[in-house]
């Protein structure tokens, strides 16, 4: 095993893409259901709650994976400001994927609602009944959702920037190990790539 891997572990990559789909879906489901009076409000909410709790469980696992397996280092030549932005936005994403479902659960508890994940599956309340707490948490649920969406947009833009413009292996580090790597096989090796990928010439 090499000291500096060039990819996220299989567990990290799997969790990343699975949760990317789930979280983006949750954002669309969330804003879609509160903006309609049709039956969509009901069936989207019926998906929203169990899917949100599933995200909470996966986020806990993901955080553990992240703490046990540090990610591959960013390219050495990446400007310090971009490194900082990458680091800060990743931790913001972790924070929000844990906070959003907890706030959703807590706000329903505070509102005195039974937290139903299905016809009869009910979670216990995690917050005492309080209209004041309900209002604060419910607004926080919206504000954090908007922050999560903006962070996701920036994250997606940055990933594409790494993949299409810098071509420095950062994007590939989240792809399956079998996928072609920009450095290896006759494709042009660019200056930016070299910094990250030459550090890890191992096969996995």
């Amino acid at each position, binding site marked *: 095993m090499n000291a500096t891997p060039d990819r996220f572990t299989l567990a990290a990559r799997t969790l990343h893409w699975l949760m990317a789909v789930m979280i983006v879906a949750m954002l669309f489901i969330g804003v879609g259901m509160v903006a*309609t009076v049709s039956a969509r409000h009901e069936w989207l909410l019926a998906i929203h709650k169990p899917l949100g709790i599933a995200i909470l469980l996966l986020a806990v696992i993901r955080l553990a994976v992240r703490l046990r397996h540090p990610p591959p280092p960013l390219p050495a030549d990446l400007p310090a400001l971009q490194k900082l932005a990458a680091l800060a936005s990743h931790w913001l994403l972790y924070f929000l994927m844990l906070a959003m479902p907890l706030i959703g659960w807590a706000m329903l508890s505070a509102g*005195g609602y039974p937290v139903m994940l299905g016809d009869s599956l009910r979670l216990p309340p995690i917050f005492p009944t309080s209209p004041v707490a309900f209002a604060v948490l419910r607004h926080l649920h919206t504000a954090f959702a908007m922050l999560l969406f903006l962070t996701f947009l920036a994250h997606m833009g940055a990933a594409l920037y790494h993949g299409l413009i810098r071509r420095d292996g950062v994007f590939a580090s989240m792809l399956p190990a079998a996928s072609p790597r920009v450095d290896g096989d006759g494709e042009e090796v660019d200056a930016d790539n070299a910094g990250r990928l030459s550090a890890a010439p191992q096969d996995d």
Partner: protein
Amino acid sequence: MHDPTPPNTPPRRIGAWSLIIGIVVIVAIAFGYVGGWLAPHRLTPKKLVNQLQHDAGTFAGYRRNHAKGVCVVGHFDSSGQAQTYSVAQVFAPGQRTPVVGRFAIPSGNPYAPDSSVPIRSMALRFALANGQQWRTGMNSMPVFPVATPQAFYAQLQAKQPDPVTGKPDPAKIAAFFAAHPETAAFRAWAKTARPSASFATESYWSLNAFVFVDAAGRRQPVRWRMVPEASDAGVARTPGGADYLAADLTERLARGPQRWQLQVTLANPGDPTNDATKTWPDDRRTIDAGTLVLERSAPQASGPCRDINYDPLVLPAGIEASDDPLLPARSAAYADSYLRRTSEEAHLPGTTAPKPETSR
């Protein structure tokens, strides 16, 4: 190791940048459309609640409709008869379920005189022993004026007071009724209906259809109503003053608990479940699910019903929503109204704090 020539020539960069920006913009636009910001014609819960405020005024801390009311507390004793059709624990034989309820009159104005409308409402929250809940809001009439949220919105718009006269424009209301023949049954009822002198002498209808689900998973569309035991005063007495309903209730409860029978009507195949303007034929089977016993009342400003959102889609296992389009619209709009009044309760920035008030 370092290749001195930059591999990304300017034209390719422009293409790549356009692709990146294009993807980000498309995702953002899709989000804006789904979230309604880019779809201004969609009827949203916010629009409905705003229109309620345009019609009745905005009163911080109060419900945006049925603003004037009173809390009640009691329990429900199940007869066991509904258990054949629904597994809901509240219907188990001999089961007693605590209830927190609220009587009210329609309108978003908490100072409306009790005699201003012939309609009264009863909302109940059953707290089942298994932790599930059943919430229901019922009105004292057998049919609803409209069948869809869109028509309800149009009706609210037609009733909005004219800025000059301060009163609804009769021509607009007439035009609304002409365009909505489904309101005929309700109007026929309203012609003879008189404001009752008491909450306790009224029947309260679910109006919307629901679905009972039995232990085998069989689904039976139903409607329910609460039928009062008290029948004395009725509509004959002309009460004085503007606020007689709460006082009447307190007086009656001081003499003893007030009771209603929960009657559940079973639909025949083909009976409309998506149209609250139509009653079902009289010969439909009705079962007596149990007795609602209300023991005491409390002012809504301090009572236990204040912070309850009587969302009709908070349902226990064994009761489900029907395809009635009013149900999801109610659920969504009540949530919006609940957020507005709890935000005011919480004195959040941008909200008006509720006035200290005794009769809320």
